[in-house]
């Protein structure tokens, strides 16, 4: 090849690479609008989301909605979305986020406020439970729409409690005593590995609630209305000590700092656990999963209190948000309106046992028939507490869960752990 030919080839390459991609131009003129929805991991039931989206597509011809699912836990999903949204990628139009995230995403400018599309926040959120109406409004703007609620409950083996004549415990001490009584007999009867209580102690998002539950139950607030930390270190240390005492009593297993939510699920389903602390979605797993050995033997109740304290639960839940980088924000906002509607909430409650975010659905006859325990759950959800709403939630969550896990692994004492959380968060939550 001579020099002339090489130069010609080079210029040809330059010209070709500068021309716009013809495929892109064509797609823009096509009549269908494509939306891409991130629907969370298997715990968030993307199968049900797909059902709802199929209904929506039937009603809105000209709309093509793709679903994307993944991320085993809330923090892994947050990492994935952070990467996509930080790159200002318009690929995802609508995404599902945990209740703790709207403030952070709003602060980062990743979500499109929905007021302009759906109306004023106060009016739009009126039918929803107070906790969800509050956490989706950031600086007066409608940041996201509640999809379904979640709260922690105690699941228990109704058959074992009946067999041993034990009533539903109302305090953690009663729960420990009941568990010990059942464990002692069952261990003789050939169940040596039977756990009294399963809680999550691995450094995952769930461990934030593991820390907060016994703290809140002693009647203390973690933060004030402005998000400033109001931690009482002595109370926090007592709360952590409660779990360690239960480990010493043999009620909670020794390697609790290794336990993730799916460990609790699998071990409860295998019949190795008497009481399990878990989110509301677990009910369906225990009753419906093919590998569950405890079908029809499960009871569910509100969380016990610390002695002399109040019964309180940790709220979770999921919200639909529209990406600030979406190219079809108006269409995406309408989709979100549908996904947060009572119609969608009813399907999720009946088919997935996911707690509704609107109060009316808890007494809906179809819902009550499908999931009878929801009518008792409503009071717990209303009285439940939210984890701190902070634009720095990533940091807040990491500090709490890492420290809690270290205390449960006994590399820090409860006092040291409470001190670490206090001094580190004191600088973040001001």
């Amino acid at each position, binding site marked *: 090849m001579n*020099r002339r030919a090489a130069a010609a080839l080079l210029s040809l390459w330059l010209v070709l690479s500068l021309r716009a991609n013809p495929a892109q131009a064509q797609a823009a003129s096509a009549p269908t609008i494509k939306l891409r929805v991130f629907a969370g991991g298997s715990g968030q039931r993307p199968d049900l989301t797909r059902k709802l989206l199929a209904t929506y597509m039937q009603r809105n011809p000209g709309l093509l909605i793709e679903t994307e699912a993944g991320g085993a836990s809330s923090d892994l999903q947050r990492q994935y979305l952070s990467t996509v949204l930080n790159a200002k990628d318009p690929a995802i139009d609508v995404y599902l986020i945990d209740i703790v995230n709207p403030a952070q995403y709003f602060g980062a400018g990743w979500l499109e406020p929905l007021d302009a599309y759906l109306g004023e926040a106060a009016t739009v959120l009126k039918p929803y439970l107070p906790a969800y109406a509050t956490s989706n409004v950031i600086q007066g703007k409608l940041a996201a729409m509640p999809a379904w609620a979640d709260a922690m409950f105690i699941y228990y083996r109704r058959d074992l409690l009946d067999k041993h004549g034990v009533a539903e415990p109302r305090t953690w001490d009663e729960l420990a005593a009941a568990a010990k009584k059942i464990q002692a007999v069952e261990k003789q009867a050939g169940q040596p590995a039977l756990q009294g209580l399963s809680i999550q102690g691995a450094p995952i998002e769930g461990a934030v609630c593991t820390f907060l539950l016994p703290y809140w139950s002693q009647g203390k607030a973690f933060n004030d209305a402005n998000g400033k930390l109001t931690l009482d270190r002595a109370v926090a240390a007592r709360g952590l000590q409660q779990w360690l005492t239960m480990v010493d009593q043999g009620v909670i297993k020794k390697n609790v700092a290794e336990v993730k939510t799916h460990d609790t699920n699998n071990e409860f389903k295998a019949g190795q656990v008497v009481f399990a602390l878990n989110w509301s979605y677990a009910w369906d797993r225990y009753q419906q999963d093919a590998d569950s050995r405890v079908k029809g033997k499960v009871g569910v109740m509100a969380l016990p209190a610390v002695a002399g304290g109040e019964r309180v639960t940790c709220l979770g839940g999921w919200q639909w948000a529209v990406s600030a980088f979406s190219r079809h924000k108006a269409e995406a906002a309408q989709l979100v309106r549908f996904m947060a509607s009572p119609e969608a909430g009813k399907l999720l409650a009946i088919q997935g046992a996911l707690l509704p975010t609107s109060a009316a659905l808890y007494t809906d006859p179809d819902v009550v028939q499908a999931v009878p325990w929801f009518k008792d759950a409503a009071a717990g959800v209303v009285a439940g507490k939210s984890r701190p709403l902070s634009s720095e*939630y990533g940091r807040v969550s990491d500090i709490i869960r890492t420290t809690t896990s270290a205390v449960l*692994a006994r590399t820090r004492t409860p006092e040291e752990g409470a001190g670490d959380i206090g001094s580190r968060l004191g600088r973040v939550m001001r």
Partner: protein
Amino acid sequence: MTPAPPLTWLDKLRDPSERTLGVLLLAPALLLLALIVVYPIGRLLFNSFYDLRLSGGSGARFVASENYALVLDDTDFWNAAKNTVLITLITVPGALAVGLGLAMLANLPFKRQWPVRLALLLPWALPLSFCGLIFAWFFHTEYGVVNDLLQRLGLADAAEPAMWLLRPGWAFTAICVAIIWKTSSFMALILLAGLQMIPKTLYEAAEVDGASRWQQFSQITVPMLMPSIIVALIFRTITALQTFDIPYTMTRGGPGNSTETLAMLIHKTTIDYLDLGYGSTLAVGMFLLSLCVTAVYLRRVGNAA
């Protein structure tokens, strides 16, 4: 005869000189290189002088060297730096020793060599995060094969299983074991190539002269293998300083932050905390540390060679 019209730039492009053509042909590659190497590093340095907390929503704010002052005071940074250096100091010689053994083994005159070489390649072909997950299972308190073996051998009490990943020292050891397993096959591969370059006649001559096995190893194999060893060590050291996947999947840095490496701290700061400015400063810190270690190391190893 009329004078030739002056050459325009288009004419020059149409019939370029050797030199111009060279520049032209190199330009795309250089541009690409600048885009993927110079731009990110430049951007990193630039970001490290800014307060870039996405959660604040206030936009970038120039803070000069404030981030750097914070890094020097940050106990998390020094803890992660210590862990990273320790992992490097333990796993690089560890992988060299195991890798050398494996390479010598694979170099033996087997009838069929491919199964041995394949077995050698497998750990290297496995993604790092899979390796971490596999070893996390191995060391799991209840379901792990390590505790099961120890109990079967009567070395551990079934009622008090060891909680490998929940004790800082043991968790660190478990991570080092996983890293050595994963990386020694890469070492072995490079060393095997080196071993095969050593002429057989040298060993034959040594045998005639009455040299023992050990003498053959220390007088022939090691000196002849030195260039390969140095290459392998340099590669391994650089990757060891960037350790992320295996501790992340095995312990997530726990218990507490006792097994957190620098790469994990940077990931946490940027992706979880969305603090891009401070994360960039930490990355510059890691870059400087890598630079120091590699420089000292190259000097030492270079002198020895």
